[in-house]
């Protein structure tokens, strides 16, 4: 929604439009996604720990074979996706709490997004590569 669109024909006051949107300017969506990804990881933690235990003491060939199997790849992909999203939101909250300079805050939030996305994509790429066996 563009800014002009909302200011043109709205009976809502400027205060009413921003009320409850919070420091992230996105309302409660981050709060909800933080819980959603948290519950997801709570459910996934036991399968993930089992996978880690399966890999203990194995060499690269053995580890690659296990990580490339379909159910294990799916479990890890779900866990990586949920953790990247969860940690992105969590770190953003920390930044919003402690970084008060507006420019530095925006730069930190941007860096946080880059970091979380990079970790998620790198891990995802590794698992897909192991699954395709190249």
């Amino acid at each position, binding site marked *: 929604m563009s800014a002009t669109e909302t200011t043109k024909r709205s009976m809502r006051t400027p205060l009413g439009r921003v009320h409850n949107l919070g420091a992230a300017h996105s309302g409660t969506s981050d709060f909800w996604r933080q819980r959603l990804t948290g519950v997801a990881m709570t459910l996934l*933690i036991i399968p993930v720990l089992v996978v880690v235990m399966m890999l203990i003491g194995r060499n*690269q060939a053995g580890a690659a074979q296990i*990580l490339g199997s379909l159910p294990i790849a799916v479990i890890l992909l779900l866990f990586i996706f949920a953790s990247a999203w969860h940690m992105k939101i969590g770190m953003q909250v920390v930044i919003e709490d402690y970084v008060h300079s507006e420019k530095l805050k925006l730069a930190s939030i941007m860096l946080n997004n880059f970091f979380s996305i990079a970790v998620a994509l*790198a891990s995802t790429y590794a*698992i897909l590569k192991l699954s395709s066996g190249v």
Partner: protein
Amino acid sequence: MTARIERPLSPHLQVYRVTLTMALSVVHRATGIALYFGTLLLAWWLIAAASGPAAYSHVQAFTGSFIGRLIVFGYTWALMHHLLSGIRHFVWDLGYGFKANEREALTWGALLGGIALTLLIWIIAYAIGGGR
């Protein structure tokens, strides 16, 4: 430039008496931050497994070293503590556990449970063969 208006400030951490739930709130955030950077280890491990034996041997050399093992042990505790402390937050989100004895019990549960789960995981890992 307009002069900065002196507004009343809300009191920060240092004016409050330290309570268990307050300390564990700080620990929850600290473990979250540690886990954030700890994902680099997870990514490194997966990329190494996908890259080949040479890259994977570097990871194994790290996890086999004393400092590496200490970091992974710390990572395990941070993960288990943050998990249980997070479950405690889910209970509060649902509106339960706010009575004094309940919130203390939940908080002690997260603290002791996190340590117990960490030790359990490492005992199982060593039993499987992580000590090799």
